[in-house]
């Protein structure tokens, strides 16, 4: 949370991406949620020393970025920002596992480095898959898909409520933070002494806001459900999308494509 403005700006940008109008955006959200799930399980199910077999999976984020017209650099940057958290744990592997497993010319590479690389590649794949899911589907549609796949209604309503007020309240938090900074001339303010009353006030305002919202909801005849913008229909395209990706992931999982490719190229060069 070093750059507060940056974080909430990114949040907004990512949310905006779901307003696109590509063919991928128009698919039923259930197909996209299930394809993402299959992708994640395939990636995570590899052994801990597998690196090269993971590379073909980059095809999935790459293809979706292209087909859905997503800003590639933004997503790469956002993914790269999260990677250090996985790398912190992964970096211990080279220290603890020093059996030599791979020789590239004179260079001997230990198992620890390979499994560390594997962790980082996994993190890149899984994190980017989540970002891409939300940017081609949008949060409300993901909730609708999950609800149709069996998530309890109460939890779906909770997720949608949270989503509706996150932007409003983040603005409020930012305003308070900025106001405090301006009044304390940079320095004495941000101690723990005043934090309680500052956040307490925010909490009370939030509480009152919830009561207002409840009354407004009652006045408008809220019956306990939200209505999604796009109607859900699982048709031929959705089936094709889901089956196509699943078959591809299965292939990538069972065959080490880079190895086959490398052997072929080596053979041709020979």
């Amino acid at each position, binding site marked *: 949370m070093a750059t507060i403005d940056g974080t909430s700006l990114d949040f907004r940008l990512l949310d905006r991406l779901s307003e696109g109008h590509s063919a991928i955006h128009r698919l039923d959200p259930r197909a996209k949620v299930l394809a993402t799930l299959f992708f994640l399980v395939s990636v995570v199910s590899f052994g801990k020393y597998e690196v090269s077999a993971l590379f073909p999976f980059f095809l999935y984020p790459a293809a979706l970025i292209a087909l859905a017209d997503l800003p590639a650099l933004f997503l790469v940057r956002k993914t790269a920002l*999260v990677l250090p958290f996985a790398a912190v744990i992964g970096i211990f592997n080279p220290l603890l596992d020093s059996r030599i497993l791979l020789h590239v010319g004179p260079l001997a590479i230990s198992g620890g480095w390979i499994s560390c690389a594997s962790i980082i590649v996994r993190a890149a794949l899984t994190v980017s898959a989540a970002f891409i899911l939300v940017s081609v589907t949008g949060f409300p549609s993901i909730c609708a898909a999950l609800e149709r796949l069996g998530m309890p209604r109460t939890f779906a309503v909770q997720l949608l*409520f949270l989503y*509706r007020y*996150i932007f409003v309240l983040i603005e409020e*938090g930012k305003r308070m*933070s900025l106001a405090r900074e301006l009044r304390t001339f940079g320095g004495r303010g941000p101690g723990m002494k005043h934090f309680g009353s500052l956040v307490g006030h925010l909490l009370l305002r939030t509480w009152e806001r919830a009561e207002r919202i409840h009354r407004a909801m009652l006045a408008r005849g809220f019956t306990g459900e939200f209505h999604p913008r796009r109607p859900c229909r699982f048709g031929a395209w959705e089936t094709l999308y889901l089956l196509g990706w699943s078959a591809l992931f299965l292939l990538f999982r069972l065959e080490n494509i880079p190895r086959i*490719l490398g052997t072929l190229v080596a053979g041709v060069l020979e």
Partner: protein
Amino acid sequence: MHMADALLSPAVGGTMWAVSAGAIAYCSAKVRSEPDERKVPLMGVLGAFLFAAQMINFTIPATGSSGHLGGGLLLAILLGPHAAFLTIASVLVVQALFFGDGGLLALGCNIFNMGFVTAFIVYPFIYKRILGANPSQGRMSLAIMLSAVAGLQLGPFCVVLQTYFSGISELPFSTFLLLMQPIHLAIGIVEGFVTVAVVSFVHRARPEILEGALRVRPIGNHPLRGVLISFLVAALLTGGILSRFASENPDGLEWAIAGVTGKEELSGPSRGIYGTLAAFQEKTAFLPDYAFRKTPAAAVRQEENDAGASDVRLGTSVAGVVGSLLTLGIACLVPFLLRKRHRVT
């Protein structure tokens, strides 16, 4: 302290998903049956409040670093366990999707480590117990302090367990534990102070909010104990079943394929394009030990069981590296090719 997808095995991830999904279903039913309808918007808005509160930083005395409110315990105190659990879970869903914290498979773990631990272990067994029937201000502060520390010890402990059972990280159990627990002791103490500050402010400004939360005794001891035990049994059962599959077959996907096709592994047909490629490859392989031969399934499994042997297969020649680079190159090229076509059409 978010658990990450990259460190997780499918068996552990699936087990924790099952446990968390069960808890979400149970809490949803519980919240819906509550007569107080105002809770629905309150939960949503308080979840958003956590994000807002995290925009307001404070400096931690004596260290100079800055911290922010975690807030799980605060939610439990204000909303009671069931509503708080759903709220924390929803916050974690948003964090996983929009901020990349944890991941979607690790969501089950994270909901358990932060939501379940706070709402169903710390809140009833530590917070409520210390608070007693007629709490004073001091007693309340003590209860919050201890609960915050306990929650931030138990949660990371679960992270260590899940990482250990997944077996992706090399960190030995005890080393990882020694890394995690002291750090989170400090974080827990800070979280305790901050939560006490916020709760005592609310207590002074609008005591009825807290009194309302205290008076509603949503859970008697008996049903809760039943729930806890049933969750524990469910976790052990699923964990036991899944880990049996995991230990017999190194990966669950191959096991699933065996279930579908009746064979251990899809054997490559000797004719068709596969056969052609294999024949081509046998002629052209320039390093004998790198031959792309279809070893019998048992031999492959043996190799995989032997920790680390799979990467002997992975590497040992330039071909692996070349192939990897090629694949990455193709993956990077795809967007440009597709996008161009996309633009033209």
